């Protein structure tokens, strides 16, 4: 019952905030209180193993809360609150909040759904309303981006529906349950069809095309929830399909898993490369988000206990740091009205808190200790080496190096360098953004130093399906390969930092130089001299990579489009000719017939 009440509450709050649309303050208060209530209701009332079914005359909607639904539900709801608080600073109407709440309802219902039909229904609800959210985005190209997103979602959704029908046909059950006993090809087909929408949601490589545009063109605060929260549904789907629907996949189709892992690694590496070639902050982050979700796919593809733990931990980490980065960029956009890296710079002097947020965000994205990005990367590498796929390991490592490149480009473009004249009077991001930044910084650091806090629930999720191999307690993690005590890593870093700072402080004094007091081959420069170079930051990499960098999936798709329209033209020519053409066809047909008959006619 609790789950139903929760969903009902969310829908009601959405409708109320829609009705209260013009009365801004009241609407915001209601929306905020609704989200907070939902969050605490979720924490207190929903326990793993809770079952509820709703009888709607012809159909029973089944709900069940598991450990995984709890895990993802908490992430999504918490991010929703952060998104909501920041979004109050934007100009939004009531419908925006209605759509937002219905998106959240759909997402949570997906987590609870126990049968495939209602799963599909809620999944499509979520997709539809998140499409509407993107549609309400900020730029002129929003419609195009949103439409792209919708097309891909619908594609994924119908693949899922097809998979559902196949499963129902063969197993006579709509419940989410094992299909391992089915005959060969059918299983694999169902598996792929069921996995498709989640690959779309988590932007796995051939299905990622909607993501950069949709992330870029949705409203900045919504992107926080969109990238950090909704993509978790994709990860949840991976978990659902690979562990609940097809339990014996590792035995039956190890090559499928291997392909899945490689796909994830390719996603991570290629998106990383695309990310550091972008000049727009949100597009860069979009590719970075895709890249990070690639690691999650790798973790699932390896299919050992601690690789899946790593994947789920990384999903959590992704939710934390990617949301943090999007939130900071949203705050910067709120103040400067631009996300173009070439037009910003030097904002560290005006927005110090945002800078700290972004700095720790990129440190976590790069996977440097002591942040949340490190434990999952560490576990993933251990799992990869233990699995013995060294080339895959190398590709994943390559991807994580690209993370250094794009994350530095981001912080350099926005915060470092010379302050532009038009940003002289920019203030720190408003309270809503600052709140989210501070709140997200806490798990980012705490879970980086004491990952044991969440390893335990994640272990509960995974140990039911895979043999537990990972030794862990609050501070330590043990794999057959190695051992890390994360607080000690943090402590050593703190200690050495104190030492370096000590050296810095006892050494001679320094003075604060003006920005124009710069080594420019001793030329005197004035304020409007262009010192800060952020565009084409890795321009020379185009030379290093050569042609492959200019390839993209979009171009391939466009080539397909051209091919199909050409074929269409040809086919049209057959049907749309005039009388003479038809006469020619008839004669040609008879000539062919005569030839085939070989003169017997």
């Amino acid at each position: 019952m609790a789950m139903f009440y929760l969903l009902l509450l969310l829908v009601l709050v959405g409708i109320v905030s829609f009705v209260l649309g013009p009365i801004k303050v009241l609407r915001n208060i209601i929306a905020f209180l609704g989200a907070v209530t939902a969050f605490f209701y979720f924490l207190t009332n929903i326990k793993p193993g809770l079952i509820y079914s709703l009888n709607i005359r012809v159909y029973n909607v089944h709900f069940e809360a598991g450990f995984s639904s709890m895990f993802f539900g908490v992430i999504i709801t918490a991010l929703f609150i952060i998104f909501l608080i920041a979004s109050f600073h934007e100009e939004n109407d009531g419908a925006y909040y209605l759509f937002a709440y219905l998106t959240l309802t759909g997402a949570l219902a997906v987590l609870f759904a126990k049968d495939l039909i209602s799963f599909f229904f809620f999944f499509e609800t979520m997709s539809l309303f998140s499409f509407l959210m993107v549609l309400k985005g900020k730029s002129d190209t929003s419609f195009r981006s949103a439409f792209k997103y919708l097309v891909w979602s619908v594609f994924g959704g119908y693949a899922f529906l097809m998979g559902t029908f196949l499963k129902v046909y063969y197993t006579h059950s709509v419940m989410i349950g094992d299909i391992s006993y089915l005959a060969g090809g059918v299983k694999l087909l169902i598996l792929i069809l069921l996995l498709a929408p989640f690959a779309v949601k988590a932007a796995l490589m051939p299905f990622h095309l909607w993501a950069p545009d949709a992330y870029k063109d949705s409203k900045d605060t919504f992107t926080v929830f969109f990238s950090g929260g909704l993509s978790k549904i994709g990860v949840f789907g991976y978990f659902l399909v690979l562990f609940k629907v097809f339990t014996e996949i590792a035995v039956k189709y190890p090559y499928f898993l291997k392909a899945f892992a490689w796909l994830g690694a390719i996603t991570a590496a290629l998106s990383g490369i695309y990310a550091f070639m972008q000049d727009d902050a949100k597009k860069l982050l979009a590719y970075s988000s895709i890249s990070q979700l690639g690691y999650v796919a790798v973790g699932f593809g390896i299919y050992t206990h601690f690789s899946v733990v790593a994947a789920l931990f990384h999903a959590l980490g992704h939710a934390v740091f990617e949301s943090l980065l999007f939130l900071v960029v949203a705050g910067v956009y709120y103040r400067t009205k631009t996300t173009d890296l070439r037009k910003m710079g030097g904002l560290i002097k005006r927005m110090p808190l945002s800078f700290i947020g972004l700095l720790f965000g990129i440190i976590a994205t790069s996977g440097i200790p002591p942040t949340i990005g490190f434990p999952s990367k560490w576990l993933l590498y251990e799992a990869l080496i233990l699995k013995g796929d060294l080339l895959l390991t190398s590709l994943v490592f390559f991807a994580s190096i690209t993370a250094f490149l794009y994350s530095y480009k981001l912080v350099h473009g926005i915060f470092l360098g010379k302050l532009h004249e038009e940003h002289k009077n920019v203030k720190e991001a408003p309270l809503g953004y600052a709140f989210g930044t501070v709140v997200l910084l806490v798990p980012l650091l705490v879970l980086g130093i004491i990952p044991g806090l969440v390893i335990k629930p994640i272990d509960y999720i995974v140990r039911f399906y895979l043999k537990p191999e990972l030794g862990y307690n609050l501070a330590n993690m043990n794999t057959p390969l190695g051992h890390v005590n994360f607080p000690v890593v943090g402590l050593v870093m703190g200690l050495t930092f104190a030492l370096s700072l000590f050296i810095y402080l006892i050494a001679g004094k320094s003075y604060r130089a003006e920005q124009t007091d710069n080594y420019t081959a001793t030329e005197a420069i004035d304020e409007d001299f262009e010192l800060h170079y952020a565009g084409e930051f890795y321009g020379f990499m185009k030379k290093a990579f050569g042609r492959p960098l200019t390839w993209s999936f979009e171009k391939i798709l466009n080539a397909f489009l051209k091919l199909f329209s050409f074929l269409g033209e040809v086919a049209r020519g057959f049907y749309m000719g005039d009388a003479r053409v038809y006469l020619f066809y008839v004669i040609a047909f008879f000539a062919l017939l005569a030839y085939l008959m070989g003169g017997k006619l």
Partner: protein
Amino acid sequence: MKLFKFAQSRSLWMMHFCTGCGAVELPPTMTSRFDMERFGIIPMATPRQSDLLLITGYLTVKTLKRVVRAYEQMPTPRYVIGFGSCTINGGMYWDSYNVIKKLELYIPVDLYINGCMPRPEAIIDAFLKLREMIDKGEANAWKKYIENYEWYKKNQAEVFDVEKWSLKK
């Protein structure tokens, strides 16, 4: 303290800023024939990193502006060696309308090397002399610049636009 002084005199990083024709004497001084690195003197790329500014030859007003800027960007203690007769009295450009005559009027100089051109031996001799001066605490021209800042600025203002070319601290 003594150790730091020792280090200061033994490690002089020279700015790689060749002004006049005297720069041509530096490559032999750096390379294997005379090897100034054995005294701890190496060329550095930017004024931020260097201790020693070598004015190698004549300075036009145009160059002087840049030299003053570079000099002010160098962290203290910083030393200046005037190199060749051009820095002393204008040398062969004694009546040129665009070459400054006395370097000392614009930036303080620790040491002059006479000649047109001085040989690498003379340069190395000057380096050793400068090292001695630092050891004895005599190479204090940079202090003069800070104490008599107004005076130097006044002199500089007579030849170029000081407002634009000097640093604001």
